[in-house]
């Protein structure tokens, strides 16, 4: 039996208090395309960065072609024949393609000979693998698809026979992605090993031979792709964690608060992140947006929260919102009655080195309650902070602590307290319980339901399917910047949602639909 190209044993890695990888084991056979799938933050990128020597594991062993290797730095990994294409390209923008490829792998101290040799080899590689790119073009003049080719060429130039690609299609158009997959098949044909990190189920099903599923820093399973199905993988990815019971009465929705029609968002790189989203949220209901991370949910929250520009029509209480003009900022949104609990509390929800009482006032610093003429009324801020700490049970109950000193759950409570206590007409909540301990999750869920019961509208975005299922009154599933469909929690299953999250609808012919439908029918029957 041939030795695995890569074998990892007991790899663990922590960043501060966050454990990104827990005791990971992985075997990748040579000449295969091996997929690693998992949600954002599941630890895929960290694991591969360890394999490439970019990070060092806290513990564990790495075997490359059966040989135990201490991958202390990228130099070692490169010498062992490992190449990596990072999600964020590591290219020097104002260098030419050729210079980028040669950098770090020059032959001799003078550039002339290195560049000459590289030019010849590059021509050969481009022909062999359909990787055509102008060697004298500046990187900053190339599109992302081309830049990615340069990264692949960089690895091949270093004679890599194990190629790791981290979320390679995130920035590509569908046709560019197809081209990439053809290249990967070609590499496999040459006997090279490819590791493909992604959170898109379809890519895994289309191109990989084996697939490993990661969840919350752990390796959940490794299976043959031909022996699995998107729905099984979705289950493995989302996990069968404790289904949290949320005590809530049936919703009693009132008039429409938020009405979104044909909303489009294009990001800085020119990629369309929202491709015509339409939805509505009524008074006294929670609309949950389910989806695998990176399918436009973040952009939806950001554009509604005033952190990003968009096109389309958005009405709040029957009055249009300015989506791209002067009044499209977060401050105006707050004045209009939109509260926002951002997805990334540490970057967007809090200033980590400021005290709790300062953080409690952010976004509402114009409030007359917090002001005394030209000066801030710090006493009022502190009194308010103490009241919120008390009500939301923030621990330790000290308004003079900096936000950094709190656990994730307590940080989140500070943000939740600030936004919920304003009683906004519309609350935008992103990943309310990401990295939050079980006790706090329950409390945060109760608070969100309480706000709903006061007749407010809530738009919830979460990648935790359990959370979506238990909190929402209606569920919309997003995939690739579109709403794939809407379901009622009582009349759907995780399986059905998982399929929608993977972009598979019943009109999709690529998968055994009949079987899926039969299964769905069965579940529906048992539920009565």
């Amino acid at each position, binding site marked *: 039996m041939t030795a695995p190209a890569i074998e990892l044993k007991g790899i663990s890695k922590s*960043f501060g208090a966050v454990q990104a990888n827990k005791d990971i084991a992985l075997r990748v056979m040579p000449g295969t395309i091996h997929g690693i799938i998992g949600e954002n933050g599941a630890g895929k990128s960290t694991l591969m960065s360890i394999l*490439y020597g*970019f*990070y060092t594991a806290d513990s564990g062993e790495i075997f490359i072609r059966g040989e135990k290797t201490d991958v202390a*730095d*990228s*130099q*070692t*990994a*490169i*010498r062992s024949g490992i190449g*990596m294409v*990072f999600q964020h390209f*590591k*290219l*020097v*923008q*104002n*260098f030419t393609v050729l*210079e*980028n490829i*040669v*950098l*770090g*792998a*020059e032959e*001799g*101290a*003078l*550039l*002339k000979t*290195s560049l000459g040799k590289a030019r010849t080899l590059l021509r050969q590689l481009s022909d062999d693998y359909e990787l055509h790119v102008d060697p004298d073009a500046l990187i900053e003049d190339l599109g992302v698809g081309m830049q990615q080719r340069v990264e692949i060429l*960089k690895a091949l130039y270093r004679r890599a026979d194990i190629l790791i690609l981290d979320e390679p299609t995130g920035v590509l158009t569908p046709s560019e992605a197809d081209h990439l997959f053809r290249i990967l098949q070609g590499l496999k044909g040459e006997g090279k090993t490819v590791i493909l990190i992604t959170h898109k189920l379809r890519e895994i099903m289309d191109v990989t031979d084996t697939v490993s599923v990661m969840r919350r820093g752990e390796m959940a399973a490794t299976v043959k792709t031909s022996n699995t199905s998107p729905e099984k993988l979705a289950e493995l990815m989302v996990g069968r964690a404790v289904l949290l019971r949320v005590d809530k009465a049936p919703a009693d929705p009132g008039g429409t608060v938020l009405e979104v029609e044909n909303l489009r968002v294009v990001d800085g790189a020119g990629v369309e992140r929202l491709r015509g989203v339409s939805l509505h949220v009524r008074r006294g209901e929670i609309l949950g947006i389910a989806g695998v991370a990176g399918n436009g949910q973040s952009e939806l929250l950001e554009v509604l929260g005033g952190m990003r520009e968009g096109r389309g029509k958005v009405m709040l209480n029957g009055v249009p919102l300015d989506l791209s003009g002067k009044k499209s900022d977060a401050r105006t949104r707050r004045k209009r009655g939109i509260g926002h609990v951002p997805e990334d509390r540490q970057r967007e929800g809090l200033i980590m080195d400021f005290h709790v009482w300062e953080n409690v006032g952010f976004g509402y610093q114009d409030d007359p309650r917090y002001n005394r003429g030209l000066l801030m009324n710090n006493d009022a801020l502190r009194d308010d902070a103490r009241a919120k700490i008390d009500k939301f049970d923030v621990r330790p109950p000290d308004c003079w602590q900096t936000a950094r000193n709190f656990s994730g759950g307590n940080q989140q409570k500070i943000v939740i307290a600030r936004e919920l206590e304003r009683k906004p007409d519309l609350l935008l909540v992103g990943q309310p319980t990401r990295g939050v301990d079980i006790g706090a999750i329950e409390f945060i869920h109760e608070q969100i339901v309480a706000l709903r019961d006061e007749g407010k509208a809530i738009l919830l975005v979460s990648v935790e399917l359990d959370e979506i299922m238990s909190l929402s009154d209606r569920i919309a599933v997003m995939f690739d910047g579109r709403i794939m469909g809407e379901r009622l929690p009582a009349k759907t299953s995780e399986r059905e949602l998982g399929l929608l999250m993977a972009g598979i609808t019943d009109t999709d012919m690529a998968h055994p639909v009949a079987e899926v439908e039969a299964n769905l029918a069965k579940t529906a029957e048992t539920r009565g």
Partner: protein
Amino acid sequence: MNVIDIVQILDSTIRLATPLLLACLAGLFSERSGVFDIGLEGKMLVAAFFSAAVAAATGSVWLGLLAGIAASMVFALIHGIASITFRGDQLISGVAINFLAAGMTVLIAQDWFQQGSRTPALTGSARFSPIDLPLADMLSGVPILGPLYADALSGHTILVYVGLLAVPATWWILFRTRFGLRLRAVGENPAAVDTAGVSVTGLRYAAVMICGLLCGLAGAYLATGLAAGFTKDMTAGRGFIALAALIFAKWRPWYALFASLLFGFLQAVSNRYSTLDLGIVEIPNAFVLALPYILTVVILAGFVGRAIPPRAGGEPYVKER
């Protein structure tokens, strides 16, 4: 204004441009690697002092030069440790170096020589003497070009020619060698260098030490070539003018030569004339002295082409979150 005036002004232009040029190239190496260096001034100052002190004590200008370079490189190492190893704020480290240099040189000078914070005047072999370029005498009779060559370009100390030769050398290193490619890359995107398996830290230290070497030459030239000994604060802001020249030169070696010559010329003009009579208006020499800074602001504001600093400049490289 006759030919002799012009030749004399050009002669002092070269003289005054040399320390600017050496410091400017020093800054170029450092900043191209992503380490901003506001401490050029301080490094020049310690180099000036130690080169003059050692030259005065030993009577050998060459030993003085070595001492000056060594002192400057020690300061460069301090800047490297603070900003590369400990990832400190590069501006703060640079400012600290400037203050340390200003205070330390005066204090040690007073302690060693007791001559009011200066070194004894350097004479003879304790000072660099002018050297004549080949054929200078023979060509001096040729109209216009003769005096330009014999009196403006020839007759400077060795360090002036070192400075001029450093320009093509810098260009060659940056754009024709492996080291130069990596150096430029590390100032633009250190992660690219790191993932290519090359040490970011090693490259940046190398660049910072080269910066120290060149600042040492600049400082030694001030005390043992341009002047005859060290006096308090003798760099007189040249380190900052060199930084301005570096921006003016858009971090390119040949442009650095022209920027240094331009700024040197402006200094030479304002040294020679108290006011500049252009026929219609009289320009006070203070304005001429301020011109380098005004030009720098104009460049930075983007009026004369864009000056784009190295993208990773000023940021310590942190790999792990």
